[in-house]
């Protein structure tokens, strides 16, 4: 556990000092909202369209952050140093997934209000709690799968390409669930609580992939 905290602290400190990943993700999301405004030619959107635009934008922003996740480890020999240390290897997975989850949470704290300001028709306040629950569960999926894919992709030749093309299909089920759960929340006179079915699908996906990632992650670090 202390290993996890040490790595997490290192990553957060690195991010705070360099401000490399999260600001880029935020900027990316805001620009994407502007692009959607022009692409859809709509001043305000609601319902399933709003749910889709929000979740897809966050998914792409998450992939952007995923690509940067292990770059410092690779370029500065962090992997070797980690393997030399007498610690549990899964600690790296947990710490990186937690770091990515926090990045996503910070991103959403800025991007969701920006979305409400720029594109969303109905008010954000009534369904906010439900939306937070949906996005939190989706973030777990993005963080776990993103960390796993990033750990695979970082050692490939074309890692900027491999990461997204492997990650996107893997993240389609949580995207379906998150978008479908967010749709009714963002509708005009929509419901204020997300449907339990989609939360259950998201939670199931989170649990399965967390266990799976935990099981296979050691093999990505060998040698």
């Amino acid at each position, binding site marked *: 556990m202390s290993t996890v905290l040490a790595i997490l602290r290192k990553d957060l400190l690195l991010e705070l000092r360099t401000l490399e990943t999260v600001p880029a993700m935020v900027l990316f999301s805001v620009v994407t909202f502007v692009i959607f405004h022009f692409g859809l030619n709509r001043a305000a959107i609601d319902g399933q369209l709003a749910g889709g635009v929000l979740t897809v934008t966050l998914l792409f922003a998450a992939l952007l952050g995923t690509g940067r996740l292990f770059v410092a480890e690779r370029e500065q020999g962090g992997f070797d140093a980690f393997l030399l240390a007498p610690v549990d290897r899964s600690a790296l997975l947990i710490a990186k997934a937690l770091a990515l989850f926090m990045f996503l949470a910070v991103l959403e704290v800025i991007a969701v209000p920006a979305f409400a300001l720029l594109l969303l028709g109905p008010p954000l306040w009534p369904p906010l709690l439900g939306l937070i629950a949906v996005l939190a569960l989706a973030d777990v999926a993005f963080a776990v799968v993103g960390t*796993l894919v990033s750990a*695979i*992709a970082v*050692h*490939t*030749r*074309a*890692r900027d*390409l*491999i990461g997204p*093309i*492997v990650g*996107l*299909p*893997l993240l*389609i*089920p*949580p995207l*379906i*669930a998150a978008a*479908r759960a967010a749709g009714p929340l963002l509708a005009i006179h929509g419901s204020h609580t997300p449907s339990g*079915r*989609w939360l259950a*699908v998201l939670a*199931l*996906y989170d649990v*399965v*992939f967390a266990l*799976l*990632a935990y*099981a*296979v992650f050691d*093999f*990505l670090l*060998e*040698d």
Partner: protein
Amino acid sequence: MTSYGRGLRALSLTTIAIIGAAFALVFFYAPLDADQGFVQKIFYVHVPLAIVSLCGFVLGGLLAIGYLRSGEARWDMRSYVAIHMSLIFSVGGLITGSIWARASWGHWWQWSDPTLVSFLIVVLLYATYQPLRFSIEDPERQSRYASVFAIVAGAFVPLNFIAVRLAQGFVHPRVLTLAGGHLPGPMRLTFAVSLMGVALLYATLWKYEMAAKSARMQVRALRRALLGEDAVRPLRRSAAPS
């Protein structure tokens, strides 16, 4: 070293016989569908292709577990060939499915059919297996990472089907259940024979590719022993551990 060529001829002949029998049944025995007529017969090709390719993807994941447990390159090669063959079968399944959808529903693609959509997602995921694999230089790492991918993706297959099925709601009528639930007797028999034929075809092609790959490896090992290390150029784009 296992000889993958053993029994290959018998297996091939059985495959040809069963597929021949399946075609005979499809054309002369199975009744014409009351609604769809002749075009419904593509069902006997499309559904077996899809089922066999999905099973092959999961099989690739199971074989990859064998690699991670044992560290022997042949397990990785088995997994690679299983996924490779499944990819070919699944593209066949997509194309035949599209033709069938066009003929019976009037559209080349039908987003409301959950089976079709989840199948597409699975194919898109597995289409990245080879780009991923061949962008890793080190052969040992290549096997390891490809195995991890195969396991994750193998577990993803059923999960994905659940998620997409839910997304369509429960009211969507299933055209066909995987168990062939509403099929009358002659159709069910024809379908079973077709499924067996396609499964045998998969097994035969898998064995052929394994035989070819292991023969090539043996030849390379012999050349290396006779002519020296430098005489054999490293393989590019191959799963065979050099």
